[in-house]
């Protein structure tokens, strides 16, 4: 973290008043203010997190006991598909874009994002994209039921009619992500305050810069693959239809060429957030800042060469299997090892355990468990037993739920006093943390066991030998699900009430964002701050 010893700029009182936010709905519809747009992204992400969560609870309720109790198989497949899509594209990515919108301008000393109007537009097309996607639940033939990875030909020749709505939804989400990425790169590269050189940028800004480049490189490929699907379904081409010379495996290659950088897009901002929080509560600068920046930068390129480890059982030639196994194992080291940097930051520090720090510690421990199961999956021969079982489900939920979601919650608790001006209610925060921590582990740890025992993925009903661990997972899912209501209560409570938060908020906090008063005024850094 760059040591910024800047004297508190005296924001003139009247400077704040005469162009505050507009009144009423117009404020939110026409806003070009990065703080308002950030809040809208975060609120939208929370709604999507709830909708995706309800679908997860339907899935876990059905899987509580063997036998079909709640839903019939086709609707169950729709739930798994929509749960995946909404959580990935609706909850995790918009939340990170919202945090970026809020914090990057303040962390680099910029008055606002580089392209404010495009910023507004890239938010406001998202609700409509998800309206299109969710409305397919009520169409004849039902919502998409071919998994969030929408493999052809199940998603082309054998798909319900609503697949076209799914395609347009993905197009719009892709457009929103690309515009957001362009905006963030322009802001970071061009609008830094004088003195805030690339050397001194906080790590959250660095990880988001790399994520933005990844987004620009792969979201168009996703748009390409869904356009190919659209042409296959409606315009009679045969990209993925073997009858006309196409190849379903081509779909898997193009999808995972997008897919693997996408999973890095979902975890790099989390690395940035955790690298901001742990130094603050350990009161010690991040260990190996340069290594972290360089390792994250190397992912921008290396994440493009390992995609086929998602396809070890598709029937690749031996050379392909060995190549992708070696490449995956080699690039796993630089990223996996970054966990040691966080531990080294804590070593000989002076730690306190407020809610953001608790979530960050849980991230380090549980994300590392997900990383280890990922390392096991990289072993190609063993992957023949793991692939498409609940072991894989456990792996990616460990890197996504205690990974991305916990880092988003940690970031929210960390920066909430700066946004709302009220100090956190620590006890409620800790209640939310411990409920989520217990819920996440009871839900996803048993999945390792049933996956290894032989339970395939995406099935609405299972054999009796998997019954007990599945009922445990379902109980855990309901604990985790309802504990998020505590999170909503905490956020709303903090917005309305709580003692006045100081500008510094956390004793160990460093960075430009802590030099503006809390709550952060509508316009910050209209005059660039002096950073020496």
């Amino acid at each position: 973290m760059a040591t910024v010893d800047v004297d508190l700029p005296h924001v003139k009182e009247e400077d704040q008043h005469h162009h505050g936010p507009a009144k009423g709905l117009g404020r939110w519809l026409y806003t070009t203010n990065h703080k308002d747009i950030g809040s809208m992204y975060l609120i939208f992400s929370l709604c999507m997190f709830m909708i995706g969560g309800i679908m997860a609870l339907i899935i876990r309720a059905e899987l509580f006991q063997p036998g079909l109790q709640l839903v019939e198989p086709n609707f169950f497949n729709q739930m798994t598909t929509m749960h995946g899509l909404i959580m990935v594209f609706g909850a995790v990515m918009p939340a990170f874009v919202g945090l970026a919108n809020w914090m990057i301008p303040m962390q680099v000393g910029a008055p606002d994002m580089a392209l404010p109007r495009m910023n507004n537009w890239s938010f406001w097309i998202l609700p409509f994209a998800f309206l299109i996607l969710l409305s397919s639940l009520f169409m004849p033939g039902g919502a998409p039921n071919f998994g969030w990875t929408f493999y052809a030909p199940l998603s082309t020749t054998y798909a319900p009619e609503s697949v076209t709505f799914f395609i347009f939804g993905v197009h719009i989400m892709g457009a929103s992500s690309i515009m957001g990425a362009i905006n963030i790169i322009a802001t970071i590269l061009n609008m830094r305050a004088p003195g805030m050189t690339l050397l001194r940028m906080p790590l959250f800004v660095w990880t988001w810069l790399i994520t933005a480049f990844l987004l620009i490189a792969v979201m168009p490929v996703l748009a390409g693959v869904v356009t190919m699907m659209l042409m296959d379904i409606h315009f009679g081409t045969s990209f993925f239809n073997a009858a006309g010379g196409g190849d379903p495996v081509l779909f898997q290659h193009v999808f995972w060429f997008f897919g693997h950088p996408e999973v890095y897009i979902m975890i790099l901002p989390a690395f940035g957030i955790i690298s901001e929080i742990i130094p603050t509560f350990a009161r010690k600068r991040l260990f190996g800042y340069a290594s972290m920046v360089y390792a994250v930068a190397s992912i921008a390129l290396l994440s493009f060469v390992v995609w086929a480890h998602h396809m070890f059982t598709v029937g690749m030639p031996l050379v392909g299997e060995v190549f992708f196994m070696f490449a995956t194992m080699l690039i796993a080291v630089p990223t996996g090892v970054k966990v040691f940097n966080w531990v080294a930051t804590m070593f000989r520090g002076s730690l306190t355990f407020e809610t953001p720090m608790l979530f960050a510690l849980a991230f380090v421990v549980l994300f590392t468990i997900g990383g280890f199961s990922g390392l096991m999956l990289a072993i190609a021969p063993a992957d023949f037993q793991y692939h498409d079982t609940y072991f894989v489900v456990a792996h990616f939920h460990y890197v996504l739920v205690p990974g991305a979601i916990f880092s988003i919650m940690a970031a929210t608790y960390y920066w909430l006093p700066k946004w709302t001006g009220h100090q956190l209610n620590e006890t409620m925060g800790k209640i939310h943390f411990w409920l989520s921590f217990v819920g996440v582990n009871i839900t996803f740890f048993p999945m390792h066991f049933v996956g290894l025992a032989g339970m395939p993925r995406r099935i609405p009903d299972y054999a009796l030998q998997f019954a007990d661990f599945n009922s445990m997972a379902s109980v855990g899912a309901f604990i985790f699900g309802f504990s998020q209501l505590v999170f909503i209560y905490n956020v709303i409570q903090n917005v309305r009430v709580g003692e006045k938060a100081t500008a510094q908020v956390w004793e160990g906090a460093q960075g430009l964002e802590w030099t503006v008063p809390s709550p952060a005024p509508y316009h910050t850094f209209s005059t660039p701050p002096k950073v020496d």
Partner: protein
Amino acid sequence: MTKAITLAISLIAAPASADWQINMNQGVTALSREIFDLHMLIFWICVVIGVAVFGVMFYSIFKFRKSKGAVAEHWHENTTVEVVWTVIPSIILIAMAIPATATLMDMYDTSEADVEIQVTGHQWKWRYQYLDEDIDFFSNLATSRQEITNEAAKNPNYLLEVDNPLVIPANKKVRFLITANDVIHSWWVPHFAVKKDAIPGFINESWVKVEEPGVYRGQCTELCGKDHGFMPIVVEVKSEADYQQWVSDQRAMKLAMAGEASKEFSMNELVAKGEGVYNTACAGCHQPNGQGIPGAFPAITGSTIATGAIDTHVDIIINGKSGTAMQAFREQLSAVDIAAVVTYQRNALGNSVGDLVQPNTIKN
């Protein structure tokens, strides 16, 4: 309280009963044990690294608390330490890659096979064709619908039982040619450690040499639509002699079936047999009560085809309707089965047309 204790015990001791199986199946082939050893090797490596990392972390959490007066130090960089803790895991991983490559190369062994079976994935059942013998049958889920909808008690092999299991000889190399008919499926038997995607329009191969005779169960492992969870795989491994016996039984049965097709059947013989065929082959989409699912699968009760001319009814069952989910059952059902299910559909499920069709009219 007892539940918590059993839970705690189960997490530590590897339980005997299958309900609490927490680890991978060791399997019954040399390869599956090799894979199990690789799995345990990488698992213990991860545990060791994990214990080290979390050890240091929890030590710092307890030792360097502000409340206990710890004052943070100011060093924040040490490239040599970083190089060490990057190079060591890399070396471990490279060491790990050698046995993994060896196992992978064993799996891609292309030596001559004794038995070759074509495995074709259909929407929601498997078809096995023995290339050297003239044996060809479908393997459907045998768990009754009542068990699935909780109206009847679930038997121990719930959802892992089929009407015609695949039969292979023990200690012989059996080569599977895996492909699909409609969407991508995946053929997986955990005890063989064989998993290969079945891709429409393309052919994949895999092989197994099973040491111990027995029954081994697996499931389709690639999302393939509505009944993805209801198309299990059951492989009966028999000794060499039993296998040859089974092959000759199959041949004899095939002749008998041909003979039976030329017999004349009475109405209620056909309807009775037809009900069984209907529940296995047709109830999946047209529902056991014949009402179908509006907007997805047409109803049989009062359907213009089932109550109209009999040969259009027979034609749609034999040749299916391309562009819809209605499959061609020509190769899936024998002439007797088709005659029985046609008569059943016309004289049950609320239809009472009164006519019937004999198997030999179907045959020509």
